[in-house]
């Protein structure tokens, strides 16, 4: 294959069967900012370029639609790529004409999800995809209802139009005399969020699992439209309870980038503290959940105590056990006091010590190891094709970490501790999360020592514009893209780590027994709310 460099125009090389591949040309560059390079393709069909990008090792991580983007008419599609070894992202914007596009799901399987999401939201259809079912719109929504279109008013839907359920959702069916299906959910026996799991099992062994989410889709993206940037941050906070600081931080950074605001070093440091605190307590509840699901409540309760202590620290710092309101555009909440931080410093050290003790104990109990080891293996090959990130990817031998690969905020100055586990089973995820909590607690202590004095918050002068920001939430890479037009949010797109990671479960459970599903699910611990935006 020929590589084309610079502005050379003889661009077309050939690929034997599946059509053309086409390299990216610098002349297509449309905008470049701190985090991403935007290219506008003068072509309607992006497939050859995207194939070429795959050949160069770039990976599709997000793909969404925007109506009335800059001077482009109709619905534009933005393909976001991650480039190995480069902190910046690449965004492709093909010339959008009409409502029919070529699917890229054959190149990047994860694109199928984004395509279904766009199809539901904007009514755009994709040809050549292997899956064209609805994603978040359930049967109750009538055909032709596409809530993200600007023509649909940003109000509650009128109930009586949705009375007649449409065509039922078609689950993948596995045929065979011994195969039978076990539907689980969306309403579960425990107090958890709604999600439907369709197991195909032979005896106790799972041969297929299909997950259906979206039962509590809240329309977060639509909700943000037309709101002021500050309101947007409050909405971002409520995306997922245990990632509220992470999401607030992501959107705030995007807004700061658009407005060109430089926040104070003190705010940078304390944001780091807040983010790591959130990571620590979220992952602690993951650990507790994992041991609960193998019926070892003795260790679970000890872990939950630690989690509770960290959340009380959060409450002491910013008045919210889930750190809500702690991060705002321009800096951090002004109510954070020196005393609460000192208290956190002391607690973090104590918790680290206690956690070591608990984890060593748990990992030496034979029956625990028996349940954890070799259960629910996420194969490393899935990491790229499903765009997996966070602990799920790192437990399968990947070093992917947004804080290191695409450093932002304080992480540009101080590199956090990096951990990686091989194996990809529940065991690997347990010990990985344990080590991440330790690393976070260490990092908090380090930051608290070096936090300078200064203003907590600086005013933000908002301009119109758009920005893409990636943050590492406790569950992995969260992407925030916001487009401010006329001083209000025109479009806000969030991709949480859970959105992609959910599909790792479908692969991880195959060959395991049904009774092991809860612990596998908990070890990946994905957010329903973070997906039902």
């Amino acid at each position, binding site marked *: 294959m020929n590589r084309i460099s610079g502005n050379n125009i003889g661009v077309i090389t050939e690929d034997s069967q599946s059509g053309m591949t086409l390299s990216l040309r610098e002349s297509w560059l449309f905008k470049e900012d701190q985090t991403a390079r935007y290219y506008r393709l003068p072509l309607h069909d992006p497939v050859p370029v995207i194939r070429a990008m795959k050949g160069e090792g770039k990976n599709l991580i997000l793909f969404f639609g925007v109506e009335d983007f800059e001077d482009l008419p109709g619905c534009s599609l933005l393909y976001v790529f991650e480039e190995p070894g480069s902190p910046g992202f690449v965004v492709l914007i093909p010339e959008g004409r009409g409502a029919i596009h070529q699917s890229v799901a054959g190149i990047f399987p994860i694109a199928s999800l984004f395509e279904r999401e766009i199809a539901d939201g904007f009514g755009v259809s994709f040809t050549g995809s292997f899956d064209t079912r609805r994603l978040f719109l359930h049967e109750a929504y009538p055909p032709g209802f596409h809530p993200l279109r600007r023509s649909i008013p940003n109000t509650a839907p009128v109930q009586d139009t949705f009375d007649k359920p449409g065509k039922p959702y078609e689950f993948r069916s596995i045929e065979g005399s011994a195969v039978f299906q076990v539907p689980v959910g969306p309403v579960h026996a425990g107090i958890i969020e709604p999600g439907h799991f369709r197991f195909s099992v032979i005896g106790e062994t799972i041969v297929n699992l299909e997950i259906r989410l979206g039962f509590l889709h809240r329309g977060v993206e639509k909700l943000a439209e037309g709101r002021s940037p500050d309101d947007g941050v409050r909405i971002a906070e409520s995306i997922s309870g245990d990632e509220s600081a992470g999401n607030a931080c992501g959107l705030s950074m995007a807004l700061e980038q658009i407005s060109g605001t430089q926040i104070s070093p003190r705010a940078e440091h304390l944001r780091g503290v807040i983010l790591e605190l959130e990571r620590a307590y979220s992952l602690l509840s993951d650990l507790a959940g994992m041991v609960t699901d193998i*019926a070892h*409540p003795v260790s679970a309760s000890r872990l939950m105590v630690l989690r509770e202590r960290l959340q009380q620290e959060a409450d002491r710092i910013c008045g919210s056990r889930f750190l809500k309101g702690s991060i705002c555009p321009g800096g951090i909440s002004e109510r954070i006091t020196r005393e609460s931080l000192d208290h956190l410093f002391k607690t973090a050290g104590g918790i680290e010590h206690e956690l070591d003790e608990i984890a060593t104990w748990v990992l030496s109990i034979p029956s625990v190891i028996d349940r954890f080891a070799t259960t629910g293996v996420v194969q490393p090959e899935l990491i790229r094709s499903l765009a997996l990130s966070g602990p799920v990817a790192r437990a399968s031998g990947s070093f992917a970490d947004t804080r290191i690969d695409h450093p932002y905020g304080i992480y540009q100055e101080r590199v956090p501790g990096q951990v990686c586990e091989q194996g990809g089973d529940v065991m690997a995820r347990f010990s990985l999360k344990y080590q991440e909590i330790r690393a976070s607690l260490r990092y908090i202590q380090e930051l608290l020592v070096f936090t300078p004095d200064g203003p907590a918050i600086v005013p933000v002068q908002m301009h119109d514009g758009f920005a893409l920001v990636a943050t590492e939430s406790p569950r992995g890479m969260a992407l925030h893209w916001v487009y401010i037009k006329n001083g209000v949010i025109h479009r806000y797109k969030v991709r949480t780590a859970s959105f992609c990671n959910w599909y790792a479960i479908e692969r991880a459970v195959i060959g395991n027994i049904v*009774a*092991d599903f809860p612990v596998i699910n908990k070890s990946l611990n994905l957010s329903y709310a973070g997906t039902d935006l």
Partner: protein
Amino acid sequence: MSITPVLAGLLNLGVVLLISPFYMTVVKKVKARAQRREGPPLLQGYYTIAKLFRKEVVYSDYASFISRIAPYATLAILLVAALLVPVIWIPEITVAEGNIIVFLYLLAFTRFLLALLGLDAGSTFGGMGSSREMSLSAVIEPTTVVVFAAMAYVAGTLAIPEMFRHATTIIPGMSPTILLLSVSLFILIIVETGRIPVDNPETHLELTMIHEGMLLDTSGRNLALFELSHAVKQTLLMTLLINMLIPFGIVQEVSVLGLALATVLFLLKGTALSIVIGIVESSFAKMRFFRVPNLFMMAFFFSVLTIFSEVML
């Protein structure tokens, strides 16, 4: 016709019925303490049953007569079984000429009823619970038989009262056969009453439950009856273990004082055993479903070893 067997039977039933919920709560309490929780008050078992008795029963649309009679039948069968196991008093003449084999059959019958009940309501989880329960019982049945056979062999009789009488003649803790037998019986208690590491009595994760799965569609008085049956079953098995291993204090010659003392002693021994069960439950994680046969195999091995050591020593 003597009055003694009737008296003994009634006394037995009374003690078993009254004491059973207490032991269940003790186990819960120990587990709670291990988790650094306060845990339920010691009489919680009785409160729960009383509360459930007052509640309305709801039947699934698909439920047949099985769902209606199973709760009563289960408890009734277990009470019959209770007549075979002297708790505090070994009377000269027993009310039921039952032996360990009948006892085994009665236990198996309740299992069967429960499995039917799980299937009856027509829900997925009930069916899954029943299927799991039946596959477990298929593997545990041989083990149970061998454990009981070992008991019978050691005591040289099939009648449970005679076994206990034999046990009183042995110095506790000094006989390897009795020790081995106790290990097997203990495993049997764990498995038969669906405790960790075999089943988790506290889980309501629909995908992992066995016993709870079958009871998922049961409510109100029926649920109360099942809770009680479960407790009675546990007490009966515990009695087997207690009276084989530490029969100390059990009454053979009737006297009111002796009976009172025996009751108190049994209460203490039962509580101690419940605490042990609670501690064991707290220190293991649940086994992977397909690994459970290994546990049975251990019990099987120990029982065979019991017979061996009885032959060889």
